[in-house]
């Protein structure tokens, strides 16, 4: 029941008009136009673009980047959340800020740092060349850059959740004789599973959609080191708009699925 005093109808109408107008212009119209552009020449060309070998290679690369980075960051996120919420120690606040760091770093810089480490002129550059190992301009570099960018996502999702849940349940388990793993598995995990799932989904969406960082690290070698976003860029720059938007539509569907997942999980989380 909305018990707040009523606003004058004029204010209501104007506020709704502004809000809808703004949202429409900024979010809805762009969303619609992705699909309009993708299907502007019909389903055939769309499908042709989507099933093109280069696109499929890009899909493979995107999956590799995601599979390489998401599980690691998930494990890290769980570990960090446990450390920070179930224990108190000097430097805890600092650690929390450090975890948030990649969140505030420009994606391009996230890629740059790895070039500086593993590029030809990088610290390890000569050593890598000697051993004929490629990190940048190859899939390991993509994974690293993606991992860097998506580093905080799972942790950021779990930490407030676990902070709120407190330590009482785990203390009870320990007093009943449970060990670390058991306590986590049987006591903590059931409570955080929806938050964890959401964190993973978000991490994955960001991993698959990352552009700036992988752009720097990839070298744009078509068919080999392109993820879906990079592939879309290439097609766009070649004026293959239908192709570019076809790829974009796939990514938009991924974003839409992420948002829908959030809606569902939010319902579960608020219970």
């Amino acid at each position, binding site marked *: 029941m909305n018990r707040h005093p009523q606003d004058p109808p004029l204010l209501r109408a104007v506020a709704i008009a502004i809000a809808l107008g703004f949202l429409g212009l900024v*979010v809805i119209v762009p969303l619609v136009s992705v699909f309009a552009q993708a299907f502007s020449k019909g389903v055939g060309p769309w499908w042709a673009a989507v099933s093109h070998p280069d696109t499929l290679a890009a899909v493979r690369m995107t999956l590799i980047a995601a599979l390489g980075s998401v599980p690691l960051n998930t494990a890290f996120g769980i*570990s960090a959340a446990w*450390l920070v919420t179930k224990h108190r120690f000097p430097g805890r606040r600092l650690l929390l800020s450090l975890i948030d*760091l990649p969140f505030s770093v420009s994606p391009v810089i996230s890629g*740059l740092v790895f070039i500086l480490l593993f590029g030809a002129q990088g610290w390890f550059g000569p050593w890598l060349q000697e051993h004929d190992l490629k990190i940048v301009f190859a899939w390991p570099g993509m994974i690293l850059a993606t991992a*860097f960018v998506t580093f905080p996502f799972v942790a950021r999702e779990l930490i407030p959740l676990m902070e709120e849940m407190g330590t009482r349940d785990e203390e009870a388990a320990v007093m009943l004789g449970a*060990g*670390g793993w058991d306590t986590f598995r049987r006591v903590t995990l059931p409570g955080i599973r929806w938050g964890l799932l959401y964190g993973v989904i978000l991490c994955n969406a960001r991993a698959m*959609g990352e552009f700036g960082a992988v752009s720097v690290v990839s070298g744009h070698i078509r068919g080999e080191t392109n993820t879906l976003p990079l592939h879309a*860029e290439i097609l766009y720059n070649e004026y293959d708009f239908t192709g570019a938007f076809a790829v974009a539509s796939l990514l938009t569907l991924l974003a839409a699925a992420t948002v829908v997942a959030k809606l569902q999980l939010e319902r579960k989380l608020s219970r």
Partner: protein
Amino acid sequence: MKRTLPGFRFTLFITVGWLVLLVGIPLAGLFLRAASLPLRELVGILLDERTLSAFRVSFGTAAMAAAINAIFGPVVAWTLVRYRIPGHRILDALIDIPFALPTAVAGITLTTLYAETGWIGSLLAPLGVRVSYTQLGIVVALVFVGLPFVVRTVQPVLEDFPAETEEAAALLGASRWQTLFRVVLPALLPAITTGALLSFARCVGEYGSVVFIAGNMPNETEILPLLIITRLEQYQYTEATAIAAVMLLVSFALLLLGNRFQARLAGKVSR
């Protein structure tokens, strides 16, 4: 100190280890590299005309976009929270789209929309307004990117805003407009500021959404991340590093500021 809950050493090792490996070392590499430059050279790079205008472009457009979001964001939040218009659940979910959508998709979509032949661009052309390849275009893209930050910071404050405060103002004789401007808006100001700050921090380093629509003309519409990439491509690692280091310092400062604001905000709301 004997800890009640297990797993401290283990999670400390994993957390700090992964943090150092993935984030610490790469960032340290960057800073060390920048620090190894003689001061004069560093200053020279930074005061270069092209670099300076890239700073101006990036920070200026980010500030403008944050300001726009600071004005429209609260209106959107207010409409969603106070007026349960039909479809408000979907609209609420849409606010997360800029957060979940890959930046490259946003980039090519907005460019196509605002090009002179695009849906919106064609409407603006007769008015003499050009969006693509101008700083206005950058602002448009950044408004999209920064939208969720202000709305999502203001929403919870609005949701928790006690009806009694507004009732008290009415009973003391204030008209609805007076209540809104003297009582509600000032109470929202901290949230709006925090959201605008977070939006600003995110937009300064934004790459994918901007690089398509900007036109990337040096000294005019070239953003800092792009300048860094350009320098990289020209193997001018030193220049790229210097610029990146300064950007990072600013980002960290903004991150700290934003966190402190958020903490204070959380403290206020919970009381």
